[in-house]
């Protein structure tokens, strides 16, 4: 394997800031990003990536490859939580199995954002419609996770009717923000992008670096939670993203996606949600332990994808696509 891809990625400022955050926790530093600022940074990233995607989509239009990519994204969003639940229910209480399956069936917007930054640094183009794929993959796993739990254990504690769960899944803050920004970017096109470019593009890398600094702090803290749960969950958190990445790579190859779009589809499939799903699961499946599903997604899967996964998936795409 071409290690230079991994080395270049590891030595990029955003990744080094992530490492700095983890280092600060490891040495017991009092470094802290105030919570409202962390929230603002996450809002900024979602708006910026949505605007960027909408603008790119306004230029490319909705073509057959675009529809095919979105279809592949939707298929992965349905298949992944189902097979994860089947695997997990043998080892864990059903509420935990459902919540973890939902987390791994959904996606991490920040991993996606990091992958787009990696592609931009590498000079590899990608389609704006992949932001729509991100939005499309956020919600189905939440609904599927709850439905699987209800079907497997009708007596299990699931709060609220299907309507409430659908509302939480489809209209949670991150979905509304990404889809809304995508639509705004699409409607306003070149004129809107020219106005927003200094905000949504010029300072993007710096804002991502700041956000990843906080992510490093949080991920390192959450890693402590996992030390008490044995080997299965951390192994799952490392192994399942690789399986999901392989599924996405096969789909991307079958559909003939370009390098950039293939990488983003793979990253989406390999990532796990630690924002939208935990918020929804805490309400819908209160018996599931958030220390499991948040910590797995945030302390194992996210750093793995960020540091090793993204360049490795690109290496495989380049090797396979020739």
């Amino acid at each position, binding site marked *: 394997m071409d290690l230079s891809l991994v080395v270049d990625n590891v030595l990029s400022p955003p990744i080094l800031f992530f490492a700095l955050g983890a280092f600060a926790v490891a040495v017991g530093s009092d470094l802290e990003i105030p919570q409202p600022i962390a929230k603002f940074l996450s809002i900024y990233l979602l708006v910026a990536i949505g605007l960027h995607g909408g603008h790119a989509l306004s230029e490319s239009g909705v073509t057959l490859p675009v529809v095919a990519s979105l279809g592949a994204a939707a298929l992965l969003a349905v298949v992944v939580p189902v097979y994860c639940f089947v695997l997990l229910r043998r080892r864990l209480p059903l509420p935990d199995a459902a919540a973890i399956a939902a987390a791994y069936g959904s996606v991490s917007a920040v991993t996606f954002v990091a992958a787009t930054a990696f592609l931009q640094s590498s000079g590899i183009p990608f389609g704006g419609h992949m932001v729509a794929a991100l939005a499309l993959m956020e919600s189905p796993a939440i609904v599927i996770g709850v439905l699987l739990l209800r079907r497997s254990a009708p007596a299990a504690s699931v709060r609220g009717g299907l309507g409430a769960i659908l509302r939480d899944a489809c209209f949670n803050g991150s979905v509304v923000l990404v889809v809304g920004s995508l639509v705004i970017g699409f409607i306003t096109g070149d004129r809107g992008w020219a106005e927003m470019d200094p905000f949504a593009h010029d300072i993007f890398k710096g804002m991502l670096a700041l956000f990843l600094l906080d992510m490093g702090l949080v991920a390192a803290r959450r890693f402590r939670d996992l030390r008490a749960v044995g080997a299965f969950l951390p192994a799952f958190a490392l192994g399942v993203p690789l399986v999901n990445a392989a599924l996405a790579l096969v789909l991307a190859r079958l559909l003939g996606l370009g390098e950039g779009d293939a990488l983003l589809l793979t990253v989406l499939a390999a990532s796990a949600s630690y924002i939208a799903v935990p*918020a929804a699961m805490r309400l819908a499946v209160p018996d599931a332990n*958030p220390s499991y599903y*948040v910590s797995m997604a945030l302390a194992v899967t996210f750093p793995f994808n960020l540091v090793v996964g993204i360049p490795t998936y690109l290496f495989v795409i380049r090797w396979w696509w020739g």
Partner: protein
Amino acid sequence: MEAVKKIEIVTDSAELPNVIRALEDLGVSGYTVIRDVEGRGGRGIRSGDGFTDVFKNSYVMTACPADQVAAIVAAVRPMLTRFGGVALVSDCAWVKH
């Protein structure tokens, strides 16, 4: 001044809307909420994550006549049992204005 009971509730942030709904259903006319409350309790350290409310608490304070306390406590207790948190009832005086 008028003698009233002060009720302070520290609850999981995800449960905050249900706590408020319970208070309103019982006719509580006013309450104060402080979001993003951190601390330590039966579920360990609740430090928050900055971008998800899953590990955060919220603080709710209200005051009511003594005969309303039992109903509020009965409504809140199941939420505390499920999500953790704490509810404190104390005597205090309300400054009428």
